[in-house]
């Protein structure tokens, strides 16, 4: 990237993948730098770049429009009520047209990362994650199942990677969990760190703290329920399905039944 084009860019690195966003609007650049603080990198050699064009709220498209992600003539088309984007994955370049709503850029980034990860054996998953003792733990569950609670109860020696959207990367025969700026109810951005993934816990609130094994087929089914994937693309859907199966073969999946107080962390190891 030329020094001149670096001036209007903000590069956001998540999971070791830097995406530069070019915008002529200094207020929007400031919004990005504030929202993704901790994940901002020098926009020197980003893997991917997007030009961002903002439209005014008066132009807002249908707010309740479903998200659409599909491949059209070699370009990914991403669309929701508050954004439209085109992305040439091979060229590494794209264009986003969106309202000033920060959730729009959040959604575009999430979708782009799901597309990137699908070909690498990784995925984004609706789960909290944390590092403790040099190892990462994922905590997935239905809404209300305890992701926010387990994050809030994390002891001081645990580093929260996210309370909402976890980033899982393939690392040879193993996996790494990476921090994300995608916050949930805690409204706390995760730490921009990563660690080898140790265990996926499926959360369930109960009357005592205990860990139970989960059969492999059940683990795949429950993991798939929590994986984020938006594209209407059979090839990538197959890849994501295969990634979930391979993940479960390599990473222990356990059911964590817990009483919502800090003692639960004594059995997380």
């Amino acid at each position: 990237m030329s020094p001149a084009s670096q001036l209007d860019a903000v590069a956001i690195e998540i999971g070791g993948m830097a995406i530069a966003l070019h915008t002529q609007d200094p207020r929007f650049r400031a919004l990005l730098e504030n929202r993704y603080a901790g994940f901002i990198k020098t926009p020197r050699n980003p893997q991917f770049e997007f030009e961002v064009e903002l439209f005014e709220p008066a132009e807002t498209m249908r707010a309740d429009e479903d998200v659409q992600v599909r491949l059209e003539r070699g370009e990914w088309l991403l669309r929701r009520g508050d954004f439209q984007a085109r992305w040439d994955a091979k060229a590494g370049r794209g264009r986003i047209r969106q309202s000033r709503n920060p959730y729009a850029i959040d959604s575009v980034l999430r979708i782009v990362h799901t597309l990137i990860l699908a070909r690498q054996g990784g995925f984004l998953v609706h789960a909290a994650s944390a590092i403790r003792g040099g190892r990462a733990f994922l905590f997935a569950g239905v809404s209300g199942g305890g992701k926010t609670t387990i994050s809030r109860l994390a002891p001081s020696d645990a580093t929260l990677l996210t309370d909402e959207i976890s980033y899982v990367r393939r690392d040879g025969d193993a996996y790494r969990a990476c921090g994300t700026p995608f916050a949930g109810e805690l409204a706390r951005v995760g730490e921009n760190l990563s660690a080898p993934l140790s265990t996926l816990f499926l959360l369930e609130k109960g009357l005592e703290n205990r860990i139970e094994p989960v059969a492999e087929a059940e683990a795949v089914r429950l993991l798939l329920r929590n994986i984020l994937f938006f594209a209407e693309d059979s090839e990538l859907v197959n890849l994501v399905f295969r990634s979930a199966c391979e993940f479960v073969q390599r990473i222990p999946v356990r059911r964590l039944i817990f009483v919502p107080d800090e003692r639960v962390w004594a059995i997380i190891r």
Partner: protein
Amino acid sequence: MMIMSAVDSTFFTLNEVGTLIWQAADGCTPLSDIVTRRICLEFEVDPDQAGRDAEQFVSDLSQHGILLVSEHPILPASPGAP
């Protein structure tokens, strides 16, 4: 099933009962009917508890602008309506 709020991009991962309520919420069928005619028939649940849980569920979704709770049927907009 997972749904995403178009308002604040919040995700909701639904269990089987939540998925059933979401799919049955057509703007016309009362929640109480969904509970008695669908949930209580398809799942082994206490009807009173199921009713309370269903109300809490739709309340949570409505707070995120995902679902609109109304005392009256919500008719679909007619073609050409503004």
